């Protein structure tokens, strides 16, 4: 039991409990609150998995942006002081059973996988670095520069072979997502605003 394990357990428990509470909660704002707990702990898990940039983005955009928007929408659309959701007990039991079944299926599918063996087989066959290879995400969690480089189309994490072949870089999605954001912004602004009257 070391520090990492302590934090991992803590974040795991709070993420899972948060997610469960979102499902169980009967009040929309409380759902949002539990969602914050859940997503915040997920960000903590990202920090533990040495993805500090993703964790920070998760906090900034997801928790600080998307969820604020959700809570805003709850406030703007709630007719009573606290929006209650009525769910019949039968429905809850049914959904719970289906959910458990589903969870069991997903877990069953991923147990018994020899991840290391699979990883080394892939690495061997495709001549890329093995999982614990040169790109050591564990090394102090410094993933910022590799991520930036990859977004521009250069793959330092692919190590030795980087000089020759082209590895996947993510310049196109980076740019095209900005177009997408522009389009969505225009759409959302159109839907949310009142019809303008043009001054003659």
């Amino acid at each position, binding site marked *: 039991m070391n*520090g990492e394990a302590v934090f991992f357990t803590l974040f795991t428990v709070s993420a899972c409990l948060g997610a469960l509470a979102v499902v169980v909660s009967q009040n929309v704002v409380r759902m949002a609150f539990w969602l914050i707990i859940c997503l915040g702990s997920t960000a903590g898990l990202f920090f533990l998995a040495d993805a500090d940039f993703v964790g920070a983005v998760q906090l900034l955009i997801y928790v*600080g942006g998307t969820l*604020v928007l959700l809570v805003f929408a709850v406030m703007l659309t709630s007719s009573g002081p606290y929006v209650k959701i009525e769910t019949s007990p039968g429905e809850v039991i049914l959904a719970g059973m289906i959910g458990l079944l589903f969870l069991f299926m997903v877990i069953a599918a991923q147990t018994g996988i020899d991840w290391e063996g699979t990883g080394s087989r892939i690495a061997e066959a495709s001549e890329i670095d093995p999982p*614990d290879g040169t790109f*050591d995400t*564990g090394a102090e969690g410094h993933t*910022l520069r590799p991520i930036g480089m990859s977004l521009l189309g250069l793959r330092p994490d692919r*190590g030795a072979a980087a000089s020759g072949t082209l590895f996947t870089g993510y310049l196109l999605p980076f740019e095209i997502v900005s177009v997408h954001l522009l389009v969505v912004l225009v759409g959302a602004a159109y839907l949310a605003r009142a019809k303008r009257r043009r001054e003659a």
Partner: protein
Amino acid sequence: MFLTLATQSLAELLESAGISSGWQYAGAAVVHMALLFGVFSLCPFFFIWMERKVAGRIQDRLGPTRVGGRFGWLQSLADGIKLIQKEDLCPPAADSLLFRAAPYIVCMASFAAFVVLPFSDGWVAVAADSGLFIMLAVMSLEVFGIILAGYSSGSKWSLFGGMREAAQMVSYEIPLAICAVIPIVAAGSLNLNEIGNMQSGGIQNWFLFHDPFTFIAFFVYFIVATASCKRAPFDLAEAESELVGGFHTEYSGMRWSFFFMGEYASMFAVCGIASILFLGGWNTGIPAIDQGLAAMRASSGPSAYLGGVLGIGVFAVKAVIGVFIQVWLRWTVPRIRIDQVITVCLKYLVPISCFLFLGSITWPLLLHAGQQRTTWTSEPLGERMAAAIPGNVAGRPANPDEPAANPDGSDESRHPASDVPSEAAPAGHAVTWMKPVEVTR
């Protein structure tokens, strides 16, 4: 506050006492977490006292004079004791869970930001590579506590206050982030410790004077930071004349004071960021003294410790001056209207900061075209940075045949709250080039 240094020594101490590895770091982290929290719970006491004194002087009064001596040093402590004694009320119309949880969220978001804020060279709890970004991200969580407080109070004043506050904070996050990124363009790193070290060697190396755009950006940043801390003249959320107390109308006692602890802590945090990004951090700006301090920090034993403490002193003075100016502004500038607040942000501050950002990108290009250099400060920053990153330019192996595997692997446990260097990554290894500067201790 002295986490890296002290965590390590404490961990060693615990290890000698026979406590297994892992637990020693956990123990050290807990102790220092408590220390950090303790120090920053006292910080608001000082700032509140300062606020009252400054307000008094500006209004031609004396301010607190009785409790704890001539200058009323202990006035805030007395206030604190009074607040603890007050009844912890939860209005019947409120959603009790959220009502109780909201102040903690605000407080936690403000305090958690200090985890990545360096107080002196290497004196940082977590030397994160994307420190600035994490700090802004964590601070952006504060808005949640405020919305939840406003919504769960079950009162119209609170609801309106919360909504206003949320709109304001979310809007001001945009120019805040853009302004904070402008010195980053010059520095090429988000690691706050690295940024602080880059500004050593004279006041001309401070990013404030790096180029005209960073100079303006500092002032824009300061305005935006004031607004994002919901300080006057942007304190619309708690506009007493319109909304009674805003989002904290229904709060009393300790919970009420948590909001204020959060507010003062985040004031210090934004001023700390300003001090590191623009004002040289723990560097005094006088080359001789800076070199002396750096030499002290590089040595070992008590003098290194002293060097660190002096660095903290320099840093804290700069940040406290920032807080003082925010206090000063509060008592001299009248509050503006809510629509004006949003207009100022979206119509003026965002375009200005975007323009500054563009300018700061084109500046090195222009300078390079004209003068064959990328900064006009003494030594080109890029070169200093390149030198600081081991193997960045020269160290990148030219031969791709260099062994790629890292035998030690990445599964070495890394303690989240302390910066334990992993045993892996031998020097000159193929990947060292992309690791930023090792935090010198």
